[in-house]
């Protein structure tokens, strides 16, 4: 199937700004699903609120556009109710890790088999460019006219610490790798996190004078490096990309099934 066969074409062109990275992540996600040969009926996509969360409206799967920050909680319900379904949860950085931070770490801790994609553009776009917990310090935003003093979460470290069994980082510059990483994340049995560094030219780029969309994408080329590269040793400030964690762990639905079997036999 072609990429467009997965889209609800009547809603295009989509609502994202010119040069917004979210469309590219959508493309990467669909190519991953296409490469894996998944049927549209077996995929449930659950999102919260924000620019990135509008992604669910554009794809021809079972889609649920929920409330701000809670997508993983809804998704946990869907998955536990129907473990045979593939659950993909695209989230923005504020959605996933500010208002949704608690659900994020607990989903990782439980190791429910689903894929969280954090579309990290370091800003709240839908509301007009406020700083997020992933903006980091010294960033200009509409709610940080004197620049941010807040430190940023490291999505990878946070996910690892919370117990995610698959953790990866990709960027919108490295489009091919993004698709490959998402494929592996979907195939992974357990809670998988893919952070995609992506650009918000309208708010983050403009306010922080990084330039237009092409310039912002190139920034990811210049400021990231593969995990464990020589460049990282020489320039520790570079952001690593690739798969950080890929390990087996007891998956929540399977573990719960064991409880069901025990309970049905009358043992506690």
């Amino acid at each position, binding site marked *: 199937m072609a990429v467009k066969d997965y889209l609800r074409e009547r809603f295009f062109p989509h609502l994202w700004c010119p040069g917004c990275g979210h469309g590219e992540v959508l493309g990467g996600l669909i190519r991953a699903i296409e490469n894996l040969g998944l049927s549209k009926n077996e995929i449930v996509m*659950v999102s919260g609120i924000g620019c990135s969360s509008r992604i669910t409206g554009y794809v021809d799967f079972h889609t649920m*556009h929920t409330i701000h920050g809670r997508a993983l909680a809804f998704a946990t319900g869907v998955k536990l109710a129907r473990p045979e*379904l593939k659950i993909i949860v695209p989230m923005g950085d504020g959605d996933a890790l500010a208002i949704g931070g608690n659900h994020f770490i607990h989903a990782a801790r439980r190791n429910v088999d689903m894929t969280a994609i954090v579309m990290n553009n370091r800003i709240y776009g839908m509301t007009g460019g406020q700083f997020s917990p992933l903006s980091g310090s010294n960033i200009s935003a509409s709610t940080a006219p004197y620049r941010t003093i807040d430190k940023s979460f490291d999505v990878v470290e946070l996910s690892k610490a919370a117990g995610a069994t698959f953790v990866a980082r990709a960027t919108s510059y490295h489009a091919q790798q993004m698709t490959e990483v998402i494929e592996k994340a979907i195939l992974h049995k357990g809670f998988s996190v893919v952070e995609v560094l992506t650009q918000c030219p309208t708010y983050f780029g403009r306010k922080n004078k990084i330039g237009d969309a092409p310039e912002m994408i190139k920034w990811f080329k210049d400021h990231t490096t593969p995990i464990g590269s020589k460049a990282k040793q020489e320039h520790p400030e570079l952001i690593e990309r690739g798969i950080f964690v890929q390990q087996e762990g007891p998956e929540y639905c399977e573990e719960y099934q064991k409880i069901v079997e025990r309970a049905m036999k009358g043992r506690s």
Partner: protein
Amino acid sequence: MGKNVKFLQGNEACVEAALYAGLDFYAGYPITPSTEIAEHLAYRLPQIGGKFLQMEDEIASICAIIGASLTGRKVMTATSGPGFSLMQEALGYAVMAEIPCVIVDVQRGGPSTGIPTHVSQGDVNQARWGTHGDHAIIALTASNHQDVFAITVEAFNLSETYRTPVILLFDEVVAHMRERLVMPEPGEVQLVERLRTSVKEGVDYHPYLPREDGRLPMSDFGGVHRYNVTGLVHDMWGFPSTEPRVVHALLRHLVDKLENRTNELARFKEFFLEDAEIILISYGSSARSALHVVEERRQRGERLGLLELQTLWPFPRDVVRNRCAGTKAVVVVEMNMGQVMQSVKLAVEHPERVFLANRIDSVFITPADIINILRIIQGKGV
């Protein structure tokens, strides 16, 4: 074979009823005085292949059951005041997206942490208006375990029938009190199952296009119809719309589907109302004390009656108005500062004859408390 009689807590009666109604997915977070519901379901659900989830908070709990409901499960969560407050946004989502689910609020003293282990009925208006925006809601309650059972089954039935969240407003006294429950036999109480669409694969399915009878057949997530569910104002396909015509029609639909059926949805019990000069109106555990007063005064020849409300929302205004017509006084017995009394005053012909017998000190309202008010009304002094 003899009847299956159990001696149990109100919370357990709720659990038995939920399982009887077909509950197979529960998510919750511990909170007094509702926790026994979670504890019993953690034990019972896996025995029937159902799922019990202890989530990270009440927000996640209600979100999880809404997600599970979309796959075709019968779902419930239980909480108390503070947790119920946290659930309000997602409750509105279930209203907007028309997703069946049952939410139990075992009321305790509030506001805030209040008095967790003591009784109150202070969440009546929160059940009605806790979530933002115009909407309608069903909230039910009961005063004894047999009724807790019946009304819990009813909650699941109404939830499926009208594709709406249904709130069960119990209170600490009913929840923790132990009394007998005669378990209905399987099949004895009618159950409403999910209405699923008959639209075939490949044919356009409209998740939000009502049938002629107003009902909206559903299609399970994971099935052959892929559609969108959103908390945004949406069209009949479930896709966001800001078209004024669509916005108006959706809001009207969400409100009318319940408010226009207020009489159909009214569940209540009548005690000695035919010739009553003074009518007590009560609900939940307060109704037990109210009934005691009525029965005792009847023996002395006083013409007292009790209207026990089981549907609190939509408020059964016609029932209240009809039953109270021509009475000398109406006394609303409740454990809050008059939340149901306000609705009663709006419903009756003579609001000036409506009085309140209440307690708000976390102590269960007794017959003596009610009698004190009656004496004042009757001009007998305290």
